[in-house]
Every structure is written in C-alpha cells, then in structure tokens.
C-alpha cells in the first residue's frame, strides 16, 4: 500500500524522534541519529515492522532520532502512518 500524503510526527527534543513520511517506491529509510552506529539496525527494524503492520510497502521515511526508546519510535511511527494514510480517526486496534 502507498501513503496518501506527506506526514510528520514527533519532535527533535532529547529522547524523542521526528519521523517524516513521504511518497516513494519501496521502503527507503533515511536515518539521522547520533547512535546510528550502535542502534541503527534496531531503529530501522522498529520502522519496518510498524510499516508492515499497516501494510505500507511504498514510502520514504526520514528519521531524525534524538535517542528515542523503541516504544517511542513505534508510537511516533504509528502517528505518522495514520496521518499519512488519512486514518487518524480510525485507529488500527490490532496494531495497538
């Protein structure tokens, strides 16, 4: 599934992450994190897993990480995906 519109979620404050989703082909992740060398793969896994749970297959993901925990990354991803799909009013309970 593709997304309908560009969407953003999260902040650039410490322990948070800012995620921007835009239209693309396949899943492209652009990760910006001071801990990318240690946790880059883990962060990307949370991103791809959350996308998979919404069946999103084509999207560009920009991740600016400020040391967010996995649960924060997942929450920000979910908010961004729902905004990008235009389904903010219909939470996907199975994913939650």
């Amino acid at each position, binding site marked *: 599934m593709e997304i309908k519109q*560009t*969407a*953003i979620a999260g*902040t*650039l*404050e*410490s322990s948070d992450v*800012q995620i*921007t989703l*835009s*239209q693309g082909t396949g899943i492209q992740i652009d990760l*910006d994190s*001071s801990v990318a060398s240690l946790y880059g793969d883990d962060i990307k896994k949370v991103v791809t897993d959350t996308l998979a749970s919404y069946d999103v297959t084509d999207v*560009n993901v*920009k991740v*600016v990480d*400020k040391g967010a925990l996995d649960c924060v990354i997942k929450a920000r991803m979910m908010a961004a995906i729902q905004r990008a799909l235009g389904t903010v009013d219909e939470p996907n309970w199975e994913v939650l």
Partner: protein
Amino acid sequence: MEIKELNIHIPRNFRKWKQFVELNHIQNFAPSEVDQIEKTFIWVEGDDVAATGSIAGNVLKYIAVCGKYSDGGAMFNQVVSHLITQAAMLGRYHLFVFTKPQYSQSFQYVGFKELALSNDGAILETGPGGIDDYLATIPVADDGEQVAAIVMNANPFTKGHQYLVETASRENDHVYVFVLQDDSSIFTYQERFDLVKQGTAQFKNVTVVSSGEYMISAATFPAYFLKDDQDQGHYQAVLDVSLFKRNIVPALHIKKRYVGTEPFSKTTDSYNQAMHEVLPPEVAVVTVPRLELGGEVISATKVRQAIVTQDVAYLDQVLPATTRTFVKAHLAELGKRIEQKGWK
C-alpha cells in the same frame, strides 16, 4: 516555559522581538526580510524571553536562543522542532534555512542537509523533495562531453536569450537551460518555460529544465526578487552560485556556465561577479556580449515596456516568432498584469 505566537507586524511587538533577536547577534531587519514573515513564536519564562523562531514561506528565519536558556542545544532543538511541526500544519514539509556558518552543524544535528557554505553564510534544507529528488528528474548527459549551463528567467524569451543559447549550443556538446521556477514575474513560470522550450526547439543539443528551488529562488536568493538590498544580494548570490557548483555541477557534469553581459540590473551584475568568484577553475564562466539591435541591446525589460505602450513594431524586431505569437495574442492581459504587479 510557555510558547506564544507573536504578531511582529504590530509595532509594539516588533520592537520587543527585534530587541531580543539583536541581542543574539542577528542584525538584518530590512523590510525585504521582515515583511515576508508569516508566523513568529517566542518561548517565555516568566518575564524573560528565552528563544524565538519564524516561518516565511518554506524558509525558517530569525531563530535565536538566549545563552542563559540554551542548555547544550536542547532549547534550539525545541525551537526548530516546533517550527517544523507548525510548517507541516501549513502543508510545508520541504524547508530551507539560511544561517551563519558556525550554526550549520547545529541544523545538521537535527536532520538538515547543508547545500552550500561560504564565509558569510550557509544554506540547508530538510524534508522530502530535496535536491536529490530534483536532480533525479533531469536527464544526465554522458560524462566526458562538453556540457554547458545557462540559467535564465526569460521574462519573456527574446532574440537576445535565443542568441545566448545558440552560442552555447554551437560551442558545446550539450546545453542545459534552467528556467527560474519562482512565480513572481509578469510571465508565469509555465509561460516562460514553454516559450524557452519553443524558442530553442531548433537546437537539438539543448535541454530545457526547471531551476527547481535551487537556483535564484525565493529560498536561495530572495534579494533577486526584492531589488532593494544590494549587500544582502551579493552574499546571497555567492551562496546561490556555491550551491550550483557543489550540487548541480557534479551531478550533470557541467563544465561551463554561459552568461550575458549585464549593463542594467545591479542585482544581476552582482550575481555575475559572484559567478566569477566562485565557479572557476572547475567551471569556466563564458560571458557573451548581449545581442544588439540598431546599437541598442535587447532586454526583456524593454519588451515589457513595449507591451504596455503596445509598441508592436519593437516587439516584432526583438522577439522570436514563438514568443511574438504568444505576446500578441495576450497583449491586453499582459499589460493589465504589469499594471497590477509593477515592472517585475
């Protein structure tokens, strides 16, 4: 800490805001910079202002954080974050920032990409639809060929522009003509682009492409569109040309940039100087004397004057057939636009 939106176009607010920003070493409050500001936010702690930041179009401006509250950059991140979120609510995701060279790194820490750096400033962007996406839309000539570039507003495309393109076309294997995408001229972007395309169709090695937001745009070179600010103009011109050299030149294997002599506009003349300062030796700047007609150079400015006075004889002389047909068919409407918008 409380975030407030402040209307700086109210004089009382403006004075207070300006005082704070000045304390943080930003000195330029020219109307051309301030007038475009749409939203300004301030962070307040009691009676103290801790930080501020503004949005103008897709450019973040006047970001300042008081040293007392900077907290190792945390406050700065909060300001940029808030501005990005606010811009997103306006549907703007692709954002630019101009800043002093020493702050470029701070913006890179929050996901911005540096596009150009000079002694006086840096320009960065963030968000989807960045420069890589722009470059991906342009067909690349084979490396090793002699590739040249021309950047023009072509408002509208005259025989003078045609002569410049023809000269470049004859002297090179391939020529890119970049048409300015900013829609603040009398002729719309689409009209200017179409007329350049039609007027250069006979030159088979010429590709006409959009400048995107990366050449002389409201983001990279606002002074071009606000002709009052020459000092700013030169500093922005150097950054604009640096951006071209660092990003466009290597991607498209450009070896030369062609430019017409500029006898009239100070802004354009200062831009041409910036090209000579920044581009060589990697990219040669080739200056072609303007095409003259009866001892007078052809200029798009004069064409726009002739549209108002309906001087069809002059238009016939200086416009190629393609532009002539369009202008004649829209003479009244173009005259009206000039009346409304001025001479731009």
